[in-house]
């Protein structure tokens, strides 16, 4: 065990800061967002990053990535959050990229990776359906064989940002299937295909982020199959297991902490600064301690993910990380809502005209939408109940 911090990390952090100071256009900084930025900001930011050779910070160099260590990736994300950059295409970067690196054909990689790097192609992730959330095996979207193609029909639900995506990777089934987990295919589908309709789902977050995606005999070439035909379950499981660390969203936890500290020192209640309230200061200190612990847990998961022989241990630990970090996200954003006082009750996307918001920093307007969105963080990516079941099975053999 060697717990020394990477000696070059501070130099790297300064390099990132310098880049952000020079290259981040102020007009796209600190824009409100829920989970992902709007498409035009993603694309613009991606272009700037790609020019620097940082188009895919967490990918290996052989795929056009920056080839950074997990520590460097974390530092980069932290600095981006602090500087208020738009997000990158999170699905393309964190889900589709690793998926194709593991299961994709050279043709698929050659076709899809360069557009991702250039910001020309944004991705969505289409697994869930109305009757298949935790129970992914219950999906009803069918992929019927038709020569060299599949014809895909069915409805995907709860699909984030499908309305601004160019491509979607999704899971469908060919009938008849041999057993409960057989017959699945993971497919790459062009969102401009004939037969795709997108219907928005309005959520409590009051931001358009979720959608239904309806497939009506959509023609998908078999060349778009990820992994083997009929073996989509394995591919899907691999993807979900590998997503937990990203879902922990440490940069957001750090951002929440900074926001709490900022509010604590300039907002007042009862004539005192928030931080001068004993209960407030104690809670702040406790959150800080938890975030520091989660930081180490993320580092542990990142280290384990480099060791294939420790896959079972990785599964258990990353489930524990997802379980605890999503719960922490919710508690912290709840506390942030408290910290903005009366304005916390107001349903609005802007704060220019609200007198209760006069002294609030710009990020205050995004707290309520963020809070409503975070109610789903213990639901998406494998609900907390599923994570507990995974831990019971993989860690305890129950």
């Amino acid at each position: 065990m060697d717990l020394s911090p990477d000696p070059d990390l501070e130099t790297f952090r300064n390099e990132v800061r310098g880049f952000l100071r020079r290259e981040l256009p102020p007009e796209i900084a600190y824009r409100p967002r829920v989970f992902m930025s709007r498409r035009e900001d993603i694309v613009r930011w991606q272009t700037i990053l790609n020019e620097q050779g940082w188009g895919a910070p967490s990918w290996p160099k052989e795929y056009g990535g920056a080839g950074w260590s997990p520590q460097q990736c974390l530092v980069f994300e932290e600095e981006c959050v602090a500087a208020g950059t738009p997000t990158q295409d999170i699905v393309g970067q964190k889900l589709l990229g690793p998926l194709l690196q593991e299961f994709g054909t050279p043709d698929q990689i050659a076709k899809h990776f360069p557009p991702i790097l250039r910001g020309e192609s944004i991705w969505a992730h289409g697994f869930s359906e109305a009757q298949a959330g935790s129970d992914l095996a219950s999906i009803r979207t069918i992929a019927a064989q038709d020569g060299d193609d599949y014809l895909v029909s069915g409805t995907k639900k709860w699909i984030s940002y499908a309305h601004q995506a160019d491509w979607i990777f999704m899971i469908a089934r060919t009938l008849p299937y041999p057993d409960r987990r057989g017959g699945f295919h993971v497919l790459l589908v062009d969102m401009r295909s004939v037969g795709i309709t997108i219907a928005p789902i309005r959520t409590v977050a009051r931001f358009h982020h979720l959608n239904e995606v309806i497939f009506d005999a959509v023609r998908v070439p078999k060349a778009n199959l990820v992994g083997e035909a009929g073996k989509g379950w394995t591919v899907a499981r691999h993807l979900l297991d590998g997503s937990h660390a990203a879902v922990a969203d440490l940069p957001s936890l750090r951002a929440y902490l900074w926001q709490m500290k900022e509010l604590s020192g300039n907002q007042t209640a009862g004539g005192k600064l928030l931080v001068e309230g004993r209960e407030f200061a104690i809670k702040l200190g406790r959150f800080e301690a938890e975030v520091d612990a989660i930081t180490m847990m993320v580092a542990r998961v990142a280290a384990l993910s480099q060791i294939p022989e420790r896959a079972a241990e990785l599964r258990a630990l990353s489930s524990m990380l997802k379980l605890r970090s999503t719960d922490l996200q919710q508690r912290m954003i709840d506390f942030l809502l408290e910290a903005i006082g009366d304005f916390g009750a107001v349903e609005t996307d802007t704060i220019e005209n609200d007198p209760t918001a006069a002294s609030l920093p710009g990020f205050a307007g995004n707290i309520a939408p963020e809070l409503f969105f975070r109610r789903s963080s213990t639901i998406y990516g494998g609900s907390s109940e599923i994570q507990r079941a995974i831990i019971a099975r993989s860690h305890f053999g129950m």
Partner: protein
Amino acid sequence: MRFDLSDAQKALRDTVRHDLAEHAKHFADSAGAASRDALRRHFASHGWLGAGLPPERGGGRDIVDLAIIARECGRQLIFGSDLLATALVSQTIVACEERASGARNLRELVAGERILSLAYGEPQSRGMPDPIATRAEGANDDLSLFGLKSLVIGGTEVDGYVVSAISGEETVLVLVDAKAAGLSRTQVRLHDGTLACHIELDGVLVNADDVLSRGAGAMAALRAGIARGIAVLCSELIGMLENTIETTAAYLKGRIQFGVPLSSFQALQHRLADMAAELELARSSLLGLLSAIGHSDEETINYRASQTKSLVGRAAKQICGEAIQLHGAVAMVEDSAIGRAYKKSLVSDILLGGSNGHDAQRAEELQRRLSTDELRWLELLPLWWMP
């Protein structure tokens, strides 16, 4: 950062694990003098009492090694080792300027020839290093100590103490022999079976040789000792919690009720999963502290130690409480492993400052930093660098 043990670290772990298991009978009685003595001699013979001390001051291993040893003690529910007491007093001495008396005592301590303990806590400070009520009266380095130190780890076998006191306006750290005139001690047995003493000092004379440190440096040295002590205590707790959770899982699998093993009930699986996640978060906090001790400044180390003590201490009580619940009545039997672990978690939340006490201290620190514009700007630097 690499979290896997190196070959050398694994060898250490395996040796400790083997030795403790092999001699379990002899080591298990936390309060028995023979048991404590046997443990001490065994640890000293391997150089484990000096683990975590700089090589030039008698050590030879780093803080991670010390944590490994402590964790193994915890795993086997061996609470009677001198590891914590030794770490507290030796790390405090090492953080003081080097003096002959300190060096001599350190040598003998590490060799297991002289038993020392850190006498810093007082009833009104509740495990915190300040405020200090014990007075060192007199001029310069000819002092007389008056006051009461509570919960000093170790029983009447302890030969000497490092005592913190106030001299004028300054903190002072002094060496005191257990047999010194004016010193009387009351041995108490704590819930986890370990021994401690309450020590009354009534005009105990201290000469210049035995003054280890004075002023701001003395308080800094005391804090440094306590921070490393916290690392040791939390390492013991983490090992203990591993044992507790493993025992609970085994129990649930073996216990048949309603015709099925208890482990088939989802509610119980989920509670166990929550315990495991709590442990891993606690372990992660401890790793953060160990990393800081190896590589950060003292201010950061003290802050991390406070965070870790709070988080691990609370986790220990939570997990042990759940473990009792999942075991049912059998955990209520005296000297059950689960019962012993629970008692250790209670005592551990009182020694070295409790979770709530530490949270309150960090809250005051945050208040100081965040209510001052200039200091808050420094704290928020990442957000403020954009012009």
